[in-house]
């Protein structure tokens, strides 16, 4: 009995090792820092899939510098501490570069870990403006930051002839930051924010706020928090008789919003980073992804795919796995053709253009808005 248990454990061990497939010593190892556990795991796995797909495609075409790319996942769990542990582990495994970064709060402390080891880092989702100042110089953000979202938002409001605005957030770092940046930008343009509200997360009843909005009758209401509560707010605004424009921040690009808000979500605007279904260049990407993983790509899959491709491109330009040379190659990136649009960087290593799009709720789903005030296509 005892012997059999030991044998079984030994067997499992051997199988485990075999299954994991230790990276070949000469492979080019790329870390993929994404949450693969916890509440954000679905998004993280969508990103990991896309990074793997990019690596597979490169390997199928003969690899990079004559080597194969192998992807080492590091689970950030959308948690600062877990992310630092994952980053330290990746660094100790001697990776050449790292791609990923989801949940700005978790990405922030890893900047130093990779910075100290001079590991090039292509950040494909996290976009808090706080990452910009904390960047030691080795990280490159290919997703637009909150500043760009504010620019997109005020441009749309202006084009729609909006004069007075109501901004509602939930008081957390993300939604409050977006709300404050928008208020500042809007007032700087000489317009008025007639109403600035903070509601509690999970508060189901927004009727007092709705009444106050009807009293102040702003031309537009801008909700900067997430879709779950946003859906209830939209519904109650329309039920309460508010007929003005409603705009939502990038936490609302979810089909679920239409299930929760129903008809009230028709004609509502949403600012968002480009998801694959709105990118003309992503058709083959979507088909390949669907074929390999039997599900449509997630909201950050396209950017993660671009991130891996960009990293491979930089290694090729550097001509070696010398990390400093790769960082220099990334820095010099000019109009790299990603499926989410061309990539060039500013002095601060952020994306040189805004990749935000405006979506419009129509027929129970998000559609790309191309009317007045919409950002120009990349």
């Amino acid at each position, binding site marked *: 009995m005892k012997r059999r248990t030991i044998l079984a454990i030994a067997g499992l061990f051997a199988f485990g090792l075999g299954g994991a497939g230790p990276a070949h010593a000469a492979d080019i190892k790329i870390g993929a820092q994404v949450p693969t556990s916890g509440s954000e795991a679905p998004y993280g796995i969508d990103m990991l899939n896309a990074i793997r797909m990019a690596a597979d495609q490169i390997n199928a075409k003969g690899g990079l510098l004559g080597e194969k790319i192998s992807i080492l996942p590091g689970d950030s769990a959308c948690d600062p501490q877990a992310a630092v542990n994952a980053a330290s582990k990746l660094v100790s495994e001697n990776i050449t570069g790292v791609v990923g970064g989801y949940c700005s709060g978790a990405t922030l402390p890893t900047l130093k870990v990779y910075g100290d080891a001079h590991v090039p880092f292509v950040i494909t989702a996290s976009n808090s403006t706080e990452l910009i100042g904390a960047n030691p110089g080795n990280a490159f953000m290919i997703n637009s930051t909150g500043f760009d979202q504010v620019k997109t938002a005020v441009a749309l409001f202006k084009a729609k002839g909006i004069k007075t605005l109501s901004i509602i957030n939930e008081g957390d770092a993300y939604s409050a930051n977006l709300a404050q940046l928008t208020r500042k930008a809007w007032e700087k343009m000489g317009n008025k924010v007639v109403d600035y509200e*903070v509601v*509690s997360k*999970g508060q189901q*009843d927004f009727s007092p706020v709705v009444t106050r909005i*009807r009293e102040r009758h702003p031309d537009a209401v801008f909700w900067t928090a997430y879709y779950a509560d946003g859906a209830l707010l939209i519904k109650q605004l329309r039920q309460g008789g508010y007929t003005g424009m409603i705009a939502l921040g990038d936490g609302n690009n979810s089909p679920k919003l239409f299930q929760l808000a129903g008809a009230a979500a028709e004609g509502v605007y949403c600012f968002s980073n480009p998801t694959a279904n709105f990118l003309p260049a992503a058709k083959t990407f979507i088909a390949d992804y669907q074929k390999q993983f039997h599900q449509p790509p997630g909201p950050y899959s396209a950017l993660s795919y671009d991130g891996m491709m960009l990293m491979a491109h930089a290694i090729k330009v550097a001509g070696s796995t010398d990390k400093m040379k790769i960082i220099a190659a990334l820095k010099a990136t000019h109009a790299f053709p990603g499926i989410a649009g061309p990539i060039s960087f500013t002095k601060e290593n952020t994306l040189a253009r805004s990749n935000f799009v405006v979506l419009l709720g129509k027929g129970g789903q998000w559609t790309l808005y191309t009317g007045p005030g919409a950002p120009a296509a990349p």
Partner: protein
Amino acid sequence: MPLYEVLLQQFANGLILGSFYALVALGYSMVYGVIKLLNFAHGDLYMTGAFAGFGALSLFSGWLGGGWGGIVPAILFSMVAVGALGVIIDRVAYRPLRQAPKLSVLITALAVSMLLENVALAFTGGQYTAFTTNLGFAGVDLGMVHVTYTQMVLVGASVVLMVVLELFVSGTMHGKAMRAIAIDQDACRLMGIDVDRTIALTFLIGSALAAAAGVLAGVYYGSINFFMGFLIGLKAFTAAVIGGIGSIPGAMLGGILLGLLEAFGTQIPGVGSEWKDVFVFAFLILFLVFRPTGLLGRPEVERM
């Protein structure tokens, strides 16, 4: 909108919000009144009730429709199911601890709350569920003040439930037994009152009321999730304390008062709604400093 209409609309808003708080606060208050336990799992019974009602409505709406014809049976089903769950929780988690230190029962109640929440999380995957009914926005308009029929039914239903409960507790033998147990459990045993059964009955009624509130909230707001019981649990507890914990009319008054405070708190001139909760809870502190037993609570002599 002219100011008086704004205030009238806020009054209606507060009344509706308050009736939800009141329904949940009743169960809190009843259980506390009878066995001196803060049943932290109460908010989660509200959540469980919403899901039970959602499940029932999905089944019934096929032949009863998604209007009130389907909703009323769903509410009744949810009240029975969650009432039974409340009794089971009492039997499994609280009754064995009847003689244990109060703190142990309190922690058990927290554990039950976590348990219910995480079971719901596991079942729903943390997703928000759309609770679709076909109730319209039709209603009565007074100037720009709009009150839908659904809202009126909601407030009416809560008032009816509360009145029935008050009549039950003040007018029946079972109610009398509950009140007696609140005063002295041991004396009740000597008098031949089945204490455990009466406590189970208290849990049955309290949980059923929370379930009714949960389904009504689902119907009204149209979205339910595993975490929806948390915030309302806290608010209902606050309402129960304002009203005087242990008192049934107190819980109703407390709930309505808290709802009105929140609605009018948004309207305080010169400040944004980020200050709303500051005012509401500052008021609560002041209120309790001057009236620690709440609106209708009786000063209590601690038994040694």
